[in-house]
C-alpha cells in the first residue's frame, strides 16, 4: 500500500483541540505502530479496502466561525458551510462552543481505538461542543448540518455532546453537499448522564467521490436512554463505527440503521455494544438495500462482561440485494461472559419478496414502482424510528 499513516496525517494539520497529553501520545503511538492503513487481513477491515483512501491527496480545511447568528427556526441550527460554522442562539440550559476546548472531564472517559480515531485525535481541526445542563429538557431539536464541497479536502472534526443528569434532548445530524476525492473523519462523543435521554438521527447523503469515516462513541450512565438512527443513502464510501459503553445499571440503547447503496457505493456499518453493567437492554436493527455494484457491510458486536447479569440484547440485520453485482457481508457477533442473559441475533439476506412483487404488478403497478413500494415497506421500521421531521422528509423524497 502506498503512503503510511504518518504521511497521510502530514497532509493535514496538527490538532487544534486541547487533548490530554496521554491521549495524544496514544494516538501517535497508534499511528506509528499501525504504520500503514490496515489491509483486509485485519478483522475490522476484512470487507473494506482502504487503498483509495491511502492514496488521497488532501488539503486541510481552515475552519472559521461566523459572528452572526442564524435566524431562529423550529430547530436550533448549527451549520458548517464554506469552511465556516454558523450557529443559532442557544436556548436556556444549552451551551454551544466552537473554541475547540472541549470538556476536560469528558476527555478522561475517552479511549482511542483504531487508525480512524488516531487520525482524528492527531488532526482534528475543531468541532462543536454542546452541553445540556442537568434537568433541562430541550424543546427544540438541535440540528447540525455539514455541507461538504470542493475537491481534495480533508475535514477532521471531533464533536462532543454532554447531556447532564436527567436532561433530555433530540439531535439531528446531516452530511450533505458534493465533494470529490475528499476525506472526512468526523467523531462524535456522546456523554449521557444518569437518567438522561438522547435521541439522535443522522442522515448521510454526500454526493461525489467522498470518503466518509464516522465514529460515534456513546458513554451511558445509570438509567439513561440513548437512541441512534443512522441512515446512509447513496454515498460513494461510508464507514460508520458506533461504539456504546453501557457503564452503569439500567441503561437502554437503541441502534437503528438503514443503508441504501447504488452504482459502486460502499457502505460499511460497524457497531459494538459493551454491556459492562447489569440490568440493561440493547436493541439493534439494521437494514440494507443494495443495487447495481454496491457493496454493504454490517458487523454488529455485542459483548456482555462477566458481572453484567440480566442483560437483554437483541440484534437484527436484514439485507436485500437488487442486483447480481451487488454484495453484502454480514457478521453479527455475540461475545457473552455472563450467564443470566438473553441475547439473540438474526440476519437475513435475500431479494425482494417475488410474490409481493408479482401481486403488485398484477394489480397494474409498474415493476419499478412496485420495487420502490416494497423497499419503502422494508425500510419502514427504521424510517419510523426517526424523529427528525427534516430527515423523514428527505427519506420520503429519496424512497419515492
Amino acid at each position, binding site marked *: 500500500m502506498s503512503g503510511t499513516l504518518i504521511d497521510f496525517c502530514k497532509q493535514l494539520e496538527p490538532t487544534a483541540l486541547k487533548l490530554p497529553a496521554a491521549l495524544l501520545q496514544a494516538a501517535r503511538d497508534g499511528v506509528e505502530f499501525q504504520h500503514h492503513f490496515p489491509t483486509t487481513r485485519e478483522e475490522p477491515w476484512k470487507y473494506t479496502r482502504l487503498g483509495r483512501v491511502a492514496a488521497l491527496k488532501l488539503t486541510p480545511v481552515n475552519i472559521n466561525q461566523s459572528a452572526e447568528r442564524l435566524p431562529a427556526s423550529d430547530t436550533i441550527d448549527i451549520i458548517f458551510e464554506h469552511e465556516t460554522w454558523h450557529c443559532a442562539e442557544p436556548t436556556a440550559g444549552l451551551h454551544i462552543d466552537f473554541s475547540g476546548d472541549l470538556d476536560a472531564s469528558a476527555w478522561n472517559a475517552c479511549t482511542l481505538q483504531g487508525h480512524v480515531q488516531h487520525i482524528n485525535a492527531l488532526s482534528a481541526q475543531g468541532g462543536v461542543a454542546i452541553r445540556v445542563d442537568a434537568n433541562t429538557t430541550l424543546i427544540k431539536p438541535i440540528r447540525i448540518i455539514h455541507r461538504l464541497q470542493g475537491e481534495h479536502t480533508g475535514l477532521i472534526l471531533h464533536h462532543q455532546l454532554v447531556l447532564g443528569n436527567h436532561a433530555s434532548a433530540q439531535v439531528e445530524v446531516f452530511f450533505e453537499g458534493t465533494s470529490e476525492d475528499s476525506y472526512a473523519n468526523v467523531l462524535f462523543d456522546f456523554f449521557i448522564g444518569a437518567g438522561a435521554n438522547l435521541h439522535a438521527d443522522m442522515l448521510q447523503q454526500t454526493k461525489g467521490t467522498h470518503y466518509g469515516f464516522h465514529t460515534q462513541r456513546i458513554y451511558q450512565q445509570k438509567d439513561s436512554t440513548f437512541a441512534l438512527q443512522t441512515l446512509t443513502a447513496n454515498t460513494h464510501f461510508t464507514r460508520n463505527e458506533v461504539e456504546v459503553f453501557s457503564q452503569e445499571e439500567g441503561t437502554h440503547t437503541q441502534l437503528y440503521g438503514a443503508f441504501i447503496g447504488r452504482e459502486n457505493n460502499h457502505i460499511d456499518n460497524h457497531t459494538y455494544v459493551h454491556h459492562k453493567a447489569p440490568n440493561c437492554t440493547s436493541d439493534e436493527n439494521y437494514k440494507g438495500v443494495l443495487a447495481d455494484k454496491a457493496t454493504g457491510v454490517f458487523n454488529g458486536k455485542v459483548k456482555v462482561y462477566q458481572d453484567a447479569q440480566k442483560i437483554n440484547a437483541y440484534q437484527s440485520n436484514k439485507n436485500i440485494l437488487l442486483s447480481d453485482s451487488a454484495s453484502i457481508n*454480514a457478521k453479527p457477533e455475540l461475545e457473552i461472559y455472563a450467564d443470566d442473559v438473553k441475547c439473540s441475533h438474526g440476519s437475513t439476506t*435475500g431479494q425482494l419478496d417475488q410474490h409481493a412483487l408479482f401481486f403488485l404488478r398484477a394489480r397494474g403497478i409498474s415493476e419499478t414502482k412496485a420495487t420502490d413500494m416494497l423497499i419503502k415497506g422494508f425500510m419502514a421500521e427504521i424510517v419510523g424510528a426517526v424523529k427528525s421531521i427534516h430527515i423523514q422528509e428527505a427519506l420520503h423524497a429519496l424512497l419515492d
Partner: protein
Amino acid sequence: MAGYTENELAKDLADKEYQYGFISEIDSDVVPPGLNEQVIHLISAKKNEPAWLLDYRLKAFEVWKTMTEPEWAHVAYQKPDFQAISYYAAPKQTKKFESWDDVDPEMKETMAKLGISLEEQQRLTGVAVDFVMDSVSVGTSFKAKLAELGIIFCSFSEAVQEHPALVQQYLGTVVPITDNFYAALNSAVFSDGSFCYIPKGVRCPMELSTYFRINAGGTGQFERTLVIADESSYVSYLEGCTAPQRDENQLHAAVVELIALNNAEIKYSTVQNWYPGDKEGKGGVFNFVTKRGLCEAHAKISWTQVETGSAVTWKYPSCILKGDYSVGEFFSVAVTNNYQQADTGTKMIHLGKHTKSTIISKGISAGHSQNSYRGLVQIHKQADHARNFSQCDSLLMGSVSGAHTFPYIECKNASAQIEHEATTSKIGEDQLFYCQQRGISEEKAISLIVNGYCKEVLNQLPMEFAVEAQKLLSISLEGSVG
C-alpha cells in the same frame, strides 16, 4: 436460582473424573522427537510409500515451514513445541492380523474399557470397525463383505499400497497442502488413517466406523482420512474418538477429505470425547482438525458432530458446494467444561446453482470454559438461488463461562436466501422448576433439558451413536448439582 447454585454446579462439574483416563502398556515403536526432512523420509520409508507420496510430504513440509500458527480463533493456549513431538508411533507388532484372535489381549482390553469391544460391535450392530490405535490400523472387519460390493474400506497406508491410483487422484484435492498451518503439518507427517471408496451406484449396507485413540505419551496424532463416494453412491461414516489421560498436552491435527461425486451422499458423524484436561485446566488434547467435503452436482454431504472433549478444539467441518443442486449440512453439539476452549463451526461455500445448506449448532458452556461458534456462509456470484439456514444456540451454565457467536455471511448473488439466527441464554429456571415439581432431581432435569435442547442434532446420528452421544452429554453434566 431454582434448586441449584452455580457454585455447586461448577464444583461438581470440576470434580467429574475423566472416565476413559487410562494408559495401555503396549510397546511402541517411536521415532525420536523432532521434525525435519529426515523424519519425513523415515516415516515414508517405514510405510514403504511410493515416491510421489514422499514428494507430497516434502512439499507440504516446505510449505509448512513458511507458515505460522493461526491466531484468529477465540482460544488461548501454550503453543505446542513442534520439535518436541514424536511424529511416528506404531505398536511394535509387525505381523498383520489374520484374525481377531491374533490381536494383543491388552489392546483388546483397552477397547473393552472404551466400551467398543470389536466382537460385540461386529455381532450386535453389524458395524465394520477400523480401529486406529495410535497411528497404525490394527483391525479391519467386514472387509470381505464390503469387498463383494466393491467397497474399499481400509487403513490409509493399506490404500496407498493397494489402491495408489485412487489415493493419488484425490489426496489433497479438497484440503490442499497450502490450506492452513495444521493441514500442511498433517500433509507432511500423517501417519495413518482410514480410506474409503464407494463405487458407482452402491449404497453401503452398513455404517462404517473408526475409533481413534491417542495412546503413546508425547506422540502427536496426525490422522488422514479420505472418503470418496462415486456417482450415485451412499455411505454413512462414523468416527469416534477417546484418548487416555495424560498430563502434558497432546496435539491432534487430523485432515479429513470427503468427495461426493454426482448424486452421491456422504453422512459423516463424529463423537469426540478426548481427554479435556483436569479441573485445573492441566493437560488435555489439542484438537486442530481440518475437515472438508466437496459436493459435485446433486450430491450431499452431512456433517454431524458431538464434541465434549479436548482442551482446545479448532474445527470447522465444511462443505464446498461446487455442483448445482448440491446440499451441505452441519449439525453440531459442543459441550465445554472446566477450562476447555472450543472454537468450532463450519464453512458453507456455495459455488453451484440451487445449492442449499443448513447449519444447526448447539453450544453448552459450563465451568470456566469458552465456547465459540464460528461459521462462514459464502454465496458466490454464479450461485443462483442458493439457500442457507443457520441456527446457533448457546446455553450458559455457570457465571464464569463464555459463549460466543461469530458468523460470517458473504453474499454476492441477489437470488440467494440466507437466514441466520442465534440465541444465548442460561438454562431455563422455569423448566427446571417444572421438572423438579414432577419429582425429577435437578441433575436429571438438567440432563433431560440439555438432551432436549440438542435433540435436532442428536437425531441426525445413527441410532447406536446417538445413545453413546446422549450418555456422553449426561456424563459431562453429571453431578452438576450438589
